[in-house]
């Protein structure tokens, strides 16, 4: 039985409608109660994209649909969506109402697909799972119901140097746009042609149609998105390589890229390893120029800098940032909190990965979707020195209580705007440093 949640840091299954919003010129069509879209819009904020938010069609279940079913209303809404909105892909997502009532949404959607419409249905009743899990449901539904229609023109594994990347979950990762851009740039640097599928760096539905062509998949995530990679392995025989965290800074970015280089070689991607290594070296050089220049500040600044950090985020960020802060910034990670509802079966591997961060230190880690409870642990902690909390807008008040520094890096994030900033990669590490010390220095007036 799942427990209560205070200060939620993720949302319910229908929140994965944002993964549709992130595909250029696509529209989520909600078959749900009236407030679902509004709740999701309010959770992510500034996240309407092309046709999300108040633009997204919704059947707005009323008492009548709850009693008599809502398929007629859905059919009508889909039909009129084609008249009102100009979109390349339509994804129907169900809410709790439709889920409990048991509407046969697949049948309605099938009617339109038979007429040649690029439409997909996916069950995302809120009680089913979190939006992080539902992201995979949405992607796999698009693969099965849309991508599969274009297999004839896109033979499986027909392009040796092409890969699909599954990493940041759109909007749930506030840095998703920038991160996908940086992953793409880095992977292009080692000689791969990358399909990122979401956001401005993707080519929209035509890129989705080409998913089967990829030689293999890259999954940069400790757990979310895994069902996508597994599904593509089964469906198109594409193997995948999983990197268990978000690579931030030089150490983990190099580890990530070397893992991909090795895997690409195994899969016969035909990349030039010498060139790839040269690219890594040049990126690394530029990175350490900056760190070298900065080290004096980090070591000498006389007026006080944070010496330890608490992170409340998804498992990928907790791992990536803990490693980065300890080894590349000199901030010691203390109690860490994975607040993304990571399923139990992944806990051990994530713990092991964090334990491997240091052979001198143990970093306490807690899986706690009830972030209010996580806050109580931080409230009670008494680590020496000035702390910094890296979390969501919820944590700003806690930071104030503790007289800690604060950086907003996860949703919901009402106190910070993120547009196309990336935290992934060499440049992402430098940006994290800028953000942390901007916040710290802003306290000196």
């Amino acid at each position, binding site marked *: *039985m799942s427990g*209560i*949640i*205070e*200060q*939620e840091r*993720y949302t*319910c*299954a229908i929140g994965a409608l944002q993964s549709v919003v992130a595909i250029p*010129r696509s529209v989520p069509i*909600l078959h749900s*109660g*009236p*407030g*679902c*879209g*509004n*709740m*999701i*819009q*309010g*959770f992510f904020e500034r996240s309407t994209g092309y046709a999300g*938010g*108040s*633009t*997204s*069609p*919704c*059947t*707005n*279940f*009323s008492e009548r*649909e*709850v009693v008599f079913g809502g398929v007629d209303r859905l059919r*009508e*809404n889909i*039909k*009129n*969506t084609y*008249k*009102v*909105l*100009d979109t390349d892909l339509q994804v129907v997502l169900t*809410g*709790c*109402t439709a*889920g*409990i009532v048991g509407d046969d949404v697949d049948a309605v959607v099938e009617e339109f697909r038979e007429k040649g419409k690029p439409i997909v249905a996916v069950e995302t*009743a*809120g*009680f*089913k799972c979190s939006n992080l899990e539902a992201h995979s449901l949405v992607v796999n539904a698009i693969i099965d119901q849309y991508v599969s229609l274009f297999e004839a023109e896109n033979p499986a594994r027909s392009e040796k140097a092409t890969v699909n990347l599954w990493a940041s979950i759109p909007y749930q990762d506030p840095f998703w746009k920038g991160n996908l851009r940086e992953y793409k740039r880095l992977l292009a640097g080692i000689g791969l042609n990358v399909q990122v599928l979401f956001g401005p760096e993707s080519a929209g539905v035509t890129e989705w149609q080409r998913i089967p062509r990829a030689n293999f998949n890259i999954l940069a995530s400790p757990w979310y998105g895994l069902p996508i990679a597994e599904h593509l392995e089964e469906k198109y025989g594409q193997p995948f390589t999983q990197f268990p965290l978000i690579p931030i800074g030089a150490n983990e970015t190099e580890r990530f890229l070397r893992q991909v280089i090795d895997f690409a070689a195994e899969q016969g991607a035909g990349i030039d390893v010498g060139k790839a290594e040269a690219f890594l070296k040049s990126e690394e050089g530029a990175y350490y120029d900056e760190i070298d220049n900065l080290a004096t500040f980090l070591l000498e600044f006389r007026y006080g800098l944070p010496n330890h950090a608490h992170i409340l985020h998804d498992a990928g960020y907790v791992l990536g940032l803990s490693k980065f802060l300890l080894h590349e910034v000199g901030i010691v990670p203390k109690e860490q909190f994975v607040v993304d509802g990571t399923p139990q079966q992944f806990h051990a591997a994530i713990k092991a990965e964090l334990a491997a961060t240091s052979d001198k230190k143990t970093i306490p880690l807690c899986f706690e979707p009830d972030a*209010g409870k996580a806050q*109580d642990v931080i409230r009670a902690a008494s680590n020496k020195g000035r702390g910094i909390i890296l979390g969501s*807008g*919820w944590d700003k*008040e*806690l930071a104030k209580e503790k007289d800690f520094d604060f950086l907003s890096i996860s949703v*919901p994030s009402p*106190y910070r705007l993120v547009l196309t900033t990336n935290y992934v990669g060499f440049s992402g590490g430098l940006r994290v440093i800028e953000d942390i010390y901007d916040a710290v220095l802003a306290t000196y007036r």
Partner: protein
Amino acid sequence: MEKVNLSLPEVSVREIRLGSITGFQGSAGELVQQSRCGLKDKARSFSQCLGCSTAQAACMVTLIQDAAVISHGPVGCSSCLHEFAFTYRVNSPLRGVDHPTQRKIFSTNLDESDTVYGGAAKLEKAIREVHARTNANAIFVLTTCAAGIIGDDVESVCDEAEEELGIPVIATFCEGFRSKVWTSGFDAGYHAIARKLIKPPRERRTDVINVINFWGSDIFSEWFAPFGAKPNFITPYSTVESLRYASEATATIQACQTLGSYLGAALEQEFGVPEIKAAPPYGVAQTDHWFRTLGKLLGKEAEAEALIAEKKKEYLPQIAELREKLVGHTAYVTGGAAHGHALLSILGELGLTAVGASIFHHDPLYDNDCEDADALAASVNNYGDVPNFNVCNKQEFELVNTLNRLRPDVLLCRHGGMTLWGAKLGIPAQLIGDEHFGMGYEGIVRYGERILETLENDEFVKNLEKHAVNPYTKWWLEQAPQTFLEGHPTAEEKKTA
């Protein structure tokens, strides 16, 4: 049927209680006229995402200083409530709350097995845990679609917990699917407060006036001072204790009747606190009328006249000056019902021509059943009819279509997400979050200045217009805005096309 019945756990939704509608196309005058003889709602064959009741109920109970809130549903049903935590913190200086405390917002996080076996046991446990963790003086339990359909007995669970814990634990029935009028959620929140929190008065306090409002600036302390009274703000920044004895105030006023309709009536009918039923003070005529009504009720007519005279002396010349600059400009209004009507009155006072409005829903009359409270009627009487009056249920596609057609000089919005479409079409657009900003004579001046500023500084929207992305089809922009509204001549044909 009785509109206020505090012996029942639930208050009926606005469609049933007030005959409210969410679809209409005509003129404001026609709507006022039809409101007196039975309005019929119209359905849409195309619809976009709405808000729902649970967020509005939460809006009213989350901001009580010492209460905790439990959303009984899947985690998504409380997703946007962090916005109220932000509001509470950011606006606290406006209400003299020096140390705003963290909002206590929980979800029972219902999962699939709960929908099969029921979530009552989980709720019971949650209430105990929230009590232990927050030490709140009251706990509100908000229902959701999932909890409603699976049929959890939330009322009994709350009653038992209340007995066990010794604090009010209040079931608040606000499932989204029950109403198309999301303001039904305000009523649900107020019904919860009225039936379980508010106690019979111990005395009548002539120095206290209830103000049912959101979280705007405090203009009322100054306004009430000549009457020897001070505001008791309901519910944002109130306490469980201050709400409990709202029953002792000498009167209740509304900042927005769409918001406070139900509680104003409940306080009058059940606790004897008279409600000022005059439409809120927007525009000179309504402001005159409102202060006079207040003075009369308090037995302080002379004080009211003195205040009116003093304020008019100061502000009427400024209003006249603004009118000269603004006259001839066209404007379009979009917002919730009563506040939208208020904006129309302000426009009328400032000499702008309202070329239309997209108002989210319409209540023929409020819970007080009083025609004097009808702000739209007042606006039409004082400033004339408004064409293209669309009750739109916040349907963006209708707004975009209409704006594109009418191309007003300025767009006035009350709710988030709507200014964007003005801007995309190159129409200067403004949203004023503080709902008290336009009240009274001084409010007309403030609003006029802001409209001038918006009209003057249109460089941003003109640039955005050049680069705006538009997902709406050319076909749609060429149709009549009410094409998908039931009864429209082309609606049936379009349905089968």
